[in-house]
């Protein structure tokens, strides 16, 4: 296991490479306001981040990653376009796997730039791959934007599309909703009974708590509307399944998705972005012909990443977390900026894992 000083030196070396590529060096506080993180990621963040508190600042978290503070810093006083790099520790609670590090170094490269998004994406990916060159890694890429475009183009109600988009990053619930909306899953007996009841509130008892009777009535009306909506067509469900099952070398994946776009024109623009990105990657010397693309990559692990996503994995060490990962996170800047969005793409590498793989010791 490389020692801490050696890892720091490696982190500094990688950060210097990012600096040479044009990034401004920045640093962020380790303590982050817990409320902002909870607001973004929900209760799950408590399982991943260390929480602490004091009587003045209230609940604070040790930064689980740099993305949030970097975006906040850029939004507060960054000029555009901007390229940033940083190196420092992040902290992750490990409740289920004691072999995973709870404190490790990350070195990041983030690009905030409007216009030519595919160029910025290719820049980040090519730069990170150049830093990793020579290590026994395989790259995985994906594009959550294609699935989002498919959902937005479905022939169904806005409420159903909103529910599906809300669960893009929770594949299991997303699948359950598709099953429900397509009529493949039965309406739960309790819901059928509710909608058939003359007086839904017959057994309700006293109204307790903050959620009012009016809110319950609103949801019943939503359910009534939903019950009237036509099911998703088999054709659309099959096309969604076809998109989600795309997993092959990028040129083939692109061809495959273009075929699907003939029957589902709503994804055509997103697929063309993928095409432009492939060209931009190739122009930067990435071996696109052998680059793996999975349409469902990153969905379960990269909330708020809403376009290009990538990760680099140790080939012989499936037990290790990704050595590098990143992607486009416009959705995060939109959420933090109260609707004001700054296109952002970036990635991080883990110098500790890089050294472990370089040294051949694990």
């Amino acid at each position: 296991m490389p020692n801490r000083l050696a890892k720091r030196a490696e982190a500094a070396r990688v950060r210097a490479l990012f600096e040479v590529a044009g990034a401004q060096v920045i640093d962020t506080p380790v303590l982050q306001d817990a409320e902002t993180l909870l607001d973004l990621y929900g209760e799950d963040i408590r399982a991943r981040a260390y929480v602490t508190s004091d009587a003045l600042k209230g609940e604070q978290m040790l930064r689980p990653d740099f993305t949030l503070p970097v975006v906040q810093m850029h939004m507060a006083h960054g000029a555009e376009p901007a390229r940033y790099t940083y190196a420092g520790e992040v902290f992750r609670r490990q409740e289920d796997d004691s072999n995973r590090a709870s404190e490790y170094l990350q070195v990041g490269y983030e690009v905030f730039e409007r216009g030519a998004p595919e160029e910025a994406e290719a820049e980040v990916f090519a730069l990170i791959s150049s830093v990793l060159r020579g290590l026994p890694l395989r790259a995985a890429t994906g594009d959550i934007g294609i699935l989002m475009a498919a959902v937005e183009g479905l022939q169904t109600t806005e409420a159903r599309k909103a529910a599906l988009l809300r669960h893009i990053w929770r594949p299991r619930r997303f699948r359950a909703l598709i099953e429900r909306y397509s009529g493949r899953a039965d309406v739960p007996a309790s819901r059928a009974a509710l909608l058939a009841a003359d007086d839904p509130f017959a057994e309700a008892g006293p109204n307790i708590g903050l959620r009012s009777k009016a809110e319950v009535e609103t949801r019943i009306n939503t359910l009534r509307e939903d019950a009237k909506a036509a099911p998703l067509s088999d054709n659309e469900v099959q096309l969604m399944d076809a998109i989600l099952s795309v997993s092959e070398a990028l040129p083939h994946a692109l061809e495959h998705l273009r075929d699907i776009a003939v029957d589902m024109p709503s994804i055509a623009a997103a697929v063309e972005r993928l095409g432009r990105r492939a060209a931009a990657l190739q122009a930067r010397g990435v071996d696109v012909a052998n680059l793996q693309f999975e349409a469902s990559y990153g969905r379960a692990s990269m909330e708020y990443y809403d376009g290009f996503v990538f990760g680099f994995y140790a080939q012989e060490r499936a037990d290790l977390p990704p050595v590098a990962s990143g992607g486009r996170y416009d959705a995060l800047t939109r959420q933090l900026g109260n609707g004001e969005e700054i296109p952002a793409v970036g990635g991080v590498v883990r110098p500790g894992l890089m050294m472990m793989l370089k040294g051949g010791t694990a």
Partner: protein
Amino acid sequence: MTLKLGVPSKGRLMEKTFEWFAARGIVLSRSGSDREYAGLVEGVDGIELVLLSAGEIPRELAAGRIHLGVTGTDLIREKLGQWEQRVEELAPLGFGFADLIVAVPQAWVDVDTLDDLDAAAAAFRTQHGFRMRIATKYHRLVRDYLRDHGVADYQLVDSQGATEGTVKNETAEAVADITSTGDTLRANHLKILSDGPVLRSEATLFRARNPDLDEAEREAMTSLLHHLQL
């Protein structure tokens, strides 16, 4: 040294545990006055009875300060990460049954499943500007369960007692708690979601894994397990 057996220090859980061991020829008892937390073991040699709160038994087992312990499966799973690697289930004891459940107000006639809870949570957050609060003391178990089922837009608020009252007091919108009959929930105008419990719990005899036992302790362990026919 002696082998240490941890048993809940009071109430029905202690009495039932004593009965379970007695039925297998091992007599456990509290020594001295009712207020003193020391115990006696008769019927097998080399074992010391340690009386402590059921909630502390998982931690003591994991730390190796007791070698065997009786507590609920709910407490072991809540308090110990990677619990299977730290303790071994020797025998379910057939009492102390309780389910960890999620319950919402009876008045929420539109909510019966986790699917409904998730949709109601999304609407609640839009309406009230904060995530729906679920009161519980089982943070890890409930969070893992809701994550596995893809429920979003909720937050857990800590409640170490009288959890059923939190909804009426408007410090939570829903609860996740242990129940055996559901009577307390009904009395507080709450109903259980129909998806089934987060966890079914039962009083169970656990053994710490990889304890550092000396010769005498190993013999006592073998002898005890023989008596218990385990």
